[in-house]
């Protein structure tokens, strides 16, 4: 890519910095500085202090709860997201446009509103909630299932939208060939389609996982926030901030930050590897 073209072929040394400096300053000041601040604060009591803070029973439970609800959600989302993407790309049916539009809704709805909606629908005061609680003994609101449902709601678009473009560009000839050879649709799917979809499926799932780990707005309304029972890491941080437990807040924040970065890096790595493979 010949960068000199845009500059009109004239001497360009300074002008590219004219653009670059504000951009770098922007990103550095906005993102890097707060991150550094929290890293520094998290290590104020040293590494051992940090580990102690995240090992406190309440914090530990909050972290584990966050991780397993996010993981469970990711698993369900991967499957249903894949199914939804498949249905939207390959099938024609009445109401397809509507379904496609609905998929995007969670992206635009404020997370707080999501929480409010879920409490309305599944809360102990609702018909559905009371029914589930009394007849099946399933408590959704103010219990871990509510957390999973809230996470499923907000993360729904990620897997679908990551898979859709890949699926759309998929060459149908391979599948048709397999079909003419007598392969059953499920077999064709498993052997021909799925391997190609695996990278976007993985990166979309990882994206939804990292998003879910930090979720606050929906969870704080829905979960009940009982320490050692239904309090997630983000809500724990809020409690720590409000009760001036700075070490605790910074330590858990740092942990959440690290998880987010690691998962994102993995997702990006998968995306890059897949892109590289396809450029050849």
């Amino acid at each position, binding site marked *: 890519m010949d960068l000199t073209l845009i500059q009109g072929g004239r001497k360009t040394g300074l002008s590219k910095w004219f653009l670059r400096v504000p951009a770098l300053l922007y990103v550095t000041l906005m993102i890097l500085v*707060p*991150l550094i601040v929290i890293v520094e604060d998290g290590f104020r009591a040293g590494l051992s202090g940090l580990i102690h803070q995240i090992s406190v029973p309440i914090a530990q439970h909050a972290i584990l709860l966050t991780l397993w609800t996010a993981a469970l959600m990711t698993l369900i989302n991967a499957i249903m997201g894949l199914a939804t993407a498949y249905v939207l790309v390959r099938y*024609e049916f009445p109401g397809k446009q509507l379904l496609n539009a609905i998929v995007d809704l969670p*992206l635009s709805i404020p*997370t707080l509103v999501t929480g409010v909606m879920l409490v309305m629908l599944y809360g102990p005061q609702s018909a559905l909630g009371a029914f589930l609680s009394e007849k099946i003994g399933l408590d959704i609101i103010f219990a871990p299932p509510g957390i999973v449902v809230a996470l499923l709601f907000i993360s729904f678009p990620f897997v679908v939208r990551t898979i859709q473009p890949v699926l759309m560009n998929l060459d149908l000839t391979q599948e048709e060939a397999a079909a003419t050879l007598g392969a059953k649709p499920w077999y064709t799917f498993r052997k021909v389609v799925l391997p190609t979809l695996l990278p976007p499926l993985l990166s979309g799932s990882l994206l939804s996982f990292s998003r879910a780990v930090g979720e606050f707005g929906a969870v704080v309304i829905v979960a009940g926030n009982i320490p050692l029972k239904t309090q997630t890491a983000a809500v724990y941080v809020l409690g720590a901030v409000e009760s001036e437990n700075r070490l605790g807040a910074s330590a858990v924040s740092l942990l959440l930050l690290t998880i987010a970065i690691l998962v*994102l890096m993995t997702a990006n790595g998968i995306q890059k590897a897949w892109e590289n493979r396809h450029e050849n």
Partner: protein
Amino acid sequence: MKTNIRGWGGWLLLALVVVYVGFLIAAPIGSLVNGAFTSGLSEAWQSLTSEPFLQSVWLSIRIAVVVVLVQAIFGSLTAWVLTRQDFFGKALINGLLDIPFALSPVVVGYMLLLLFGRNGILGPLMESLNIQVAFAVPGMFLATLFVSLPFMVREMTPVIQQLDFSQESAAATLGASKWRIFWQVIFPQLKTALIYGMTLTFARALGEFGAVLVIGGGVQGRTETATLYIFRSLDERQYTDAYVAAIVLGCFSVMLVLLADALKRKRSQD
């Protein structure tokens, strides 16, 4: 009924998806709409026109507009620099940009508190400059800016990547100034992505909750956005107020994104 589904397997899959989406997404939205009107239309109207609600909406909009403008300029700039230039540390910057997306909003608010709180690093400095950041609108603005950062950059990047060089080089050979090249050759190609990015950013800014709660404090009449207003109404047992506000906020955000989607589709048809 136009359909290409063959065999019961396909129908089963479709049914599964529809039921899932119905329960997960459509049902909650439906119950919200239902809940807002259980107390009657006039009560809903009263909530809609109440001063605290309107004030909170105004604050949300103000913050969102400024955030969008800043992101439009700096986000696009960042996308440009990242796509068109090569420099040391580029991968790091790229990585940093994804963080606001995954980082918990509470942590964002807390980071700003660490920076700008009374005992924060920049706290005394702000105090001497008589600028209030923590527990005031500027802090909430910064928080919203942080969480919405990736949207603009990620929207603009693919479009910048696909810019047509031949036009630019042609204009350059004809002696057009850089400025002119930008406005008349480059900008038109970016316009749609820019508007789409701005819309997404706006919707995201309106919906911000956790970060502005921590850094703003939710003071009625001062630092209460629409989301914080909903949160407070729930606390005050003003359920109609909360649900009506939630619907307004939800609907508005949804319409915004649908509009942006329509724009995107129009662009791909051009």
